[in-house]
């Protein structure tokens, strides 16, 4: 017993230093690019990323085609308010229905171009223009609709992919650059979730200190749901909403889990072993959010699947132990435990 205390004292000289190290270790472990750039040097990561990018462009064609099914909705919408955003500045000179036709046809043709010429920067740029025009059209009805934002930004980021397609152009420099842009897309997707989580935490702290209902209250989720359902017409409801309103406790842990999942998303950009778990979690979150408060953000799902489910940065040899150790908070706590056990044993 005595021996182990002294060793602990040796390890952590002062209490202050102990706390400081506790904070610094997870941060220093996570934020520099060390981990990522080490993986970037490996060939398999590059090969994997290179197989994912074409499918982004193929899916884009599918998405563009399916927009046809939505045409009548858009036509109805624009007959009331139509205030073109800047990317469709040319809309002022044409009839509204012509604008819709042009944007949709261009979107489909642009994505088809992308499917054939995604290896060329010009091809990827045309795809970006196509989705940008469509996004602008979708947002020209007086209200912004952020569901398509992700497609625009990722298409923009992918323009900067270097030309590393042929087997002849595989210089390490290009490979790294390719992976970097790919990582940028991943980080961007995760950043959006982290921002969403960050505001929730800030608001929760403020509301808690004011003594109001906050995210940690047991009835928080049912307050969210009932407020949303109150403004729906009488015939509409969500599938799981009524259940959670009636049994508020059911919603407590899910809400905390969502905040955890969202807030630490950006951190996950540096933790490839957790990519697929986070993808699953965020997809479940989207499905759950729709079933309770009716919030629909399904446009994000392809990215969660593409970019994270089989992430190029994930080490195929990584063990479950490693994965759990990488978990935010839980992993950090666990990170201290085994070490102490070892010192105990000594």
């Amino acid at each position, binding site marked *: 017993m005595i021996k182990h205390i002294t060793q602990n004292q040796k390890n952590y000289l002062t209490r202050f230093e102990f706390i400081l190290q506790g904070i610094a270790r997870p941060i220093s472990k996570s934020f520099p690019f060390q981990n990522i750039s080490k993986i970037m040097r490996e060939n398999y990561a590059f090969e994997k990323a290179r197989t994912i990018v074409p499918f982004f462009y193929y899916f884009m064609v*599918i998405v563009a085609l399916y927009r046809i099914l939505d045409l009548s909705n858009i036509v109805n919408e624009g007959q009331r308010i139509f205030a073109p955003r800047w990317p469709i500045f040319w809309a002022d000179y044409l009839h509204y229905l012509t604008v819709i036709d042009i944007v949709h046809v261009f979107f489909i043709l642009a994505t088809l171009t992308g499917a054939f010429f995604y290896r060329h920067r010009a091809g990827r740029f045309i795809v970006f223009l196509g989705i940008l025009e469509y996004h602008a059209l979708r947002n020209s009805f007086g209200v912004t609709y952020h569901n398509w934002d992700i497609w625009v930004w990722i298409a923009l980021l992918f323009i900067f992919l270097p030309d590393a397609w042929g087997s002849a152009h595989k210089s390490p420099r290009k490979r790294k650059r390719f992976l970097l842009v790919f990582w940028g897309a991943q980080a961007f997707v995760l950043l959006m979730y982290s921002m969403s989580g960050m505001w929730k935490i800030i608001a929760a702290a403020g509301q808690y200190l004011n003594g109001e209902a906050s995210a940690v209250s047991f009835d928080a989720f049912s307050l969210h749901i009932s407020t949303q359902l109150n403004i729906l017409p009488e015939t509409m409801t969500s599938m799981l909403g009524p259940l959670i309103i009636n049994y508020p406790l059911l919603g407590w842990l899910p809400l905390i889990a969502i905040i955890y999942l969202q807030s630490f998303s950006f951190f996950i950009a540096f933790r490839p072993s957790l990519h697929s778990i986070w993808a699953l979690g965020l997809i479940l979150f989207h499905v759950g959010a729709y079933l309770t408060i009716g919030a629909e953000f399904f446009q994000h799902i392809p990215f969660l699947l593409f970019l994270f489910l089989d992430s190029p940065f994930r080490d195929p040899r990584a063990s479950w132990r490693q994965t759990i150790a990488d978990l935010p908070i839980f992993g950090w706590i666990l990170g201290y435990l085994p070490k102490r056990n070892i010192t105990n044993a000594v």
Partner: protein
Amino acid sequence: MKSNPYIKKFTAYIYDFPSLESFAKEERPFEKAKNIVRYLYYFLALKSTTMLFAGDTYFGTSENFSPVWSTLWVNLLSPADAITIIQFFFLASAFIGSFFYWNRIARIIAFLGVFELHALLSSFGIEVDHAWYPWLFVTFFLIFLPDTRAQTRHSLEGRKFFLLVFLAVQASVFFTYSMSGFGKIYGAINQIIGGGMHAFAPEALALHVAHWLASTHSVSLLGPFIIDHPWFGWPLFVGTIYLQFFALWILFKPSLHKLWAAGLVFSHIGIYVIMGLTYLSSAPLLILLFFDSPFHKPGTSWRKILLDLPIFGSLLRLFMDFRLSKMKK
């Protein structure tokens, strides 16, 4: 007979698909095929979530419910409950497919998801759902893939097996098109014998459009234009029949996979623009399966692609052989 040089030459014109073993010997086709399988399930996952959003509007009304044999169990519940159950089963099955596509049980579950969804959609009213047929076939054939984890290496035999199943998946998509093309040609022959209007006549598309738009009381973007200028419709219609009928043949001409898929996607866009019909469900399959086909050899020359074309390519080969033999003389 087999030694007959003309027959040999003729078969070479139409069938020069290398053996699957030669593909299996390489790493690339197998890796590609494996990758595509994954994205097929991703699409189902995406589709299942968006369908959730469309809600029960996707389905018919319960008064019209007349179950097919695979949804007979719904009679124990109400159709509304069945819709919920099947939607969620489809959602879960698609994600199980996405996450564990390498496991056969997961693929069986994914197939059952599509199967029950299609059965449910076919249980309203009197018409069977057509949109999910291609996916029904595809998910069914995918079950036969060898049970393999993504990371493990495969034996030559295993890869061959994998590629054969993948070829069957591709075939199932092109098969439907070929059936459709065959039906049109068969109908045209019947009509020609009967002595009347037929599919190869210049006004054929205009008549189709006029008849369809009048009987469905619908409008389309370019339909009226085709009716007023029937000659513009002729190449489109004959071209579509050409694309459809030879689709299955193209399966064995990998150099044309991408072009053919794009052509068929275009024909779907055309059908929408001219007839006002949205039939998009096989477009994702065309794009995912054929745009980056595992059997396509990169760097195939335009010459080879041209020579692979049905009819025209064969004629061209014949012509070139003729020239060659003349030059030899």
